[in-house]
């Protein structure tokens, strides 16, 4: 993907979405029972009455100097607001990704090796259950079981890793686990499919024929090669997880980027919607760039010059 034109389009889309949203931030700021008169005054003071060409020009001239604008409700620059939330979302996403990867690939390998047998069905069934339930519901149910009934974990909130690593883990396990549960199936299925594909490749068959023990074949040849599509999926999954984080942050009251953007949509804090969408998309583009590099490193054919 050539990143520059994509980012240009992304910035235009981020801007355009806001212009089709009805309503504005004045109704949020003034409060639910504000009268039309009170609203009109506030709108004037906030400068919400500018025509869209002016706003578009402002958007790009600010972007040109790396300025994402000012949040109307947060009294904070959009860039600063997002950077402040990024650690929450990233740690949630990475922890979830790690849990999902480990459990998912394990299930996937197991299923592939026992393909067509009972263990395959069981593993895939287990992997798919989490994937098949809406994650907000899963999150609330887990919250009741693990936080209220068993009182093992807190119901929500956040402590930065730098402040208290153990506390961070305590707060993160439940939301990251929920998120991982809903994405684990994706990895399990992908691993299984990739493993199956690799397992019937000639070199694996040859290795088997040569009398190599099954688990060595699987570990040494099959798994490493099966990792390539899994890494690609991890790239895609980071986007999916980022989307899932939106909901999980809402359920577990985590001050992350997802909640920031959803809140901004709900309250019509336009600069935050625009900047937030643009920045998450940019991150996604960069992650995919990184995935491409990792892909190249894993795949010897690409590594040795075949692009």
């Amino acid at each position, binding site marked *: 993907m050539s990143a520059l034109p994509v980012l240009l389009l992304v910035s235009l889309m981020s801007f355009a979405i806001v212009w089709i949203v009805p*309503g504005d931030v004045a*109704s*949020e700021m003034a409060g639910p029972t504000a*009268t039309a008169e009170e*609203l009109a005054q506030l709108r004037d003071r906030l400068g919400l009455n500018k025509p869209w060409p002016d706003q578009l020009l402002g958007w790009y001239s600010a972007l040109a100097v790396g300025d994402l604008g000012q949040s109307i*409700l947060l*009294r904070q620059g959009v860039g600063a607001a997002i950077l402040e939330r990024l650690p929450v979302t990233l740690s949630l996403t990475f922890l979830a990704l790690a849990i999902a990867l480990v459990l998912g690939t394990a299930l996937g390998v197991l299923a592939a090796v026992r393909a067509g047998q009972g263990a395959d069905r069981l593993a895939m069934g287990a992997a798919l259950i989490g994937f098949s339930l809406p994650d907000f519901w899963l999150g609330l149910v887990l919250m009741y079981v693990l936080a209220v009934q068993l009182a093992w974990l807190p119901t*929500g909130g956040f402590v930065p890793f730098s402040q208290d690593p153990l506390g961070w883990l305590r707060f993160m396990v439940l939301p990251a686990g929920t998120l991982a549960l809903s994405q684990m199936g994706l990895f399990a299925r992908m691993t299984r499919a990739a493993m199956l594909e690799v397992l019937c490749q000639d070199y694996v068959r040859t290795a088997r024929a040569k009398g190599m023990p099954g688990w060595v074949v699987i570990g040494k040849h099959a798994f490493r090669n099966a990792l390539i599509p899994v890494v690609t999926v991890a790239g895609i999954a980071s986007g999916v997880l980022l989307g899932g984080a939106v909901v999980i942050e809402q359920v577990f009251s985590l001050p992350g980027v997802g*909640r920031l953007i959803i809140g901004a949509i709900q*309250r019509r804090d336009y600069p935050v919607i625009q900047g937030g969408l643009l920045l998450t998309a940019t991150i996604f583009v960069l992650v995919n760039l990184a995935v491409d590099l990792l892909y190249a490193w894993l795949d010897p054919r690409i590594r040795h010059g075949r692009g």
Partner: protein
Amino acid sequence: MLTRRDLGLAAGGLVVLPGLARPALAQRAGGNLVMAQQAQPPTLDAQVTTAQAARNISLHLYETLYARDEAGNPVPDLAEGVDISPDGLTYRFALREARFHNGKPMTSADAKASLLRYGRVGGSAFIMQPVDAIDTPDARTVVVRMKAPSPGFIAGISSPRAPCAIMPEEEAGKDANKNEAIGTGPYRFVEYRPDSHVQLTRFGDYVQNRAYQGMDGFAGRKVPNVENITIRFVAEGGARTAGLQAGEMHILEAIAVPAAERLRSDASLKMHEMMPWSFQTLMLNLAQPPMDNPAFRRALQAALDLEEIMAISTDGLYRMTHGWQHPGTTYFAGDAGKQMYNINNKDRAKALLKEANYKGEEIVLLGDSSFKNHNDTIVTAAEQLRGIGINVRVNITDWPTAFSQRTQRSGWHVWALMLGIEPYEGPYGVVGFFSGHAPVQHVRDEVIEDCQRRLTTGLKEEERKQAVVDFQKRMYDEAIAIKCGDVGIVQATRAQVRDYKPYRIPRMWGVSLG
């Protein structure tokens, strides 16, 4: 001649309700208290917003010259009292001793600047419109001069709707949403983490109002016992209940009624019911045919089973009351219009539809899913109206969309709105909603305009009360809007929160942690 009694003011604020007096010093100090609420404040500029989420926080930081007592009547807070000239044109406030969070003592210059700022940016800025000039003859005296008598002035500046907060003069010079959160309140602002929490801490130099013995509404003697207060924003109702049960939160601004019923027997928790909290209404758009026809509006009035609407939209915590003011308050308008409340007569409704010559025009019911009460009211009302043969379209959007739609003259016929703070603060906001340049029903009604005029300028309480009676009668006679009933809420605390008294916001002064 206008006296304090006419204004419903307790003389000099020396009257304290007996049950409220509490020995202020016997409390255990210290501890960290966590309160959870659904929304986060749109701004910490107390003057600007009418949002409950902001009020919960800002009324711990700020105080007003007058404030509402436990019964909702204006009593002195930062003022020691007010002398109102017989012609009703001059208000002379004597200020009590108070100190801002920045260490400076409060002076009349601060009060003047704050009042002027409220006139520029205030959420209820109209209350400053009759003000001609403000003088500060000395550091402890503020004199407000009116262009015309304005008997609602004290009610206005004492209202918590968008509090007329007193802030330091230099902060008052700043535009809306640009000031620092510095007030004279018992708690001091520490930090605001959007989507997470607001942190407040006890203001060590807080000057208590020694004219009172105990807490009294938003006024009274406020004793900050708890050292730190965290106000967390937790969007999910289920997560708030879970947090309370797990002991991570001490106070919930509101708990779902079924959850409250289930947890009532839990000894570690306390449920505090408040009735009335607000009332549910259906606003009508008189500019949009066939709503311009009174017979059609009366058909709606006759058709609705308001008890069903209330039972569903409040989860069972409601009271069937017709009044556009709460019973037991000064301006409650008696039985005016009562016979037209909750008629629930489908045959009469159908006959009225025929009389109105209704031909199946589409009627748009506008609601929002951001407030559960609004959503449920519209869904329930729609089913009922469909039942008498009205061609109903439900349009439920999120709050900003519904709100911007309702300010238009077309595109909607009926809109659900819950009014909480307006009926609490008295008749001015309620009547004001239906009068002025932009009445909610989009078509000026001269009778209501006249009621509004009499209410805001009448020097005698009797005149003003009559204006409210006439207003309420007109609302029912012409079916200008439909009052559905009174809504209650349940505030919840952990049992270890001592001396908690439910009120319009969870007050965290006066309480302590056991």
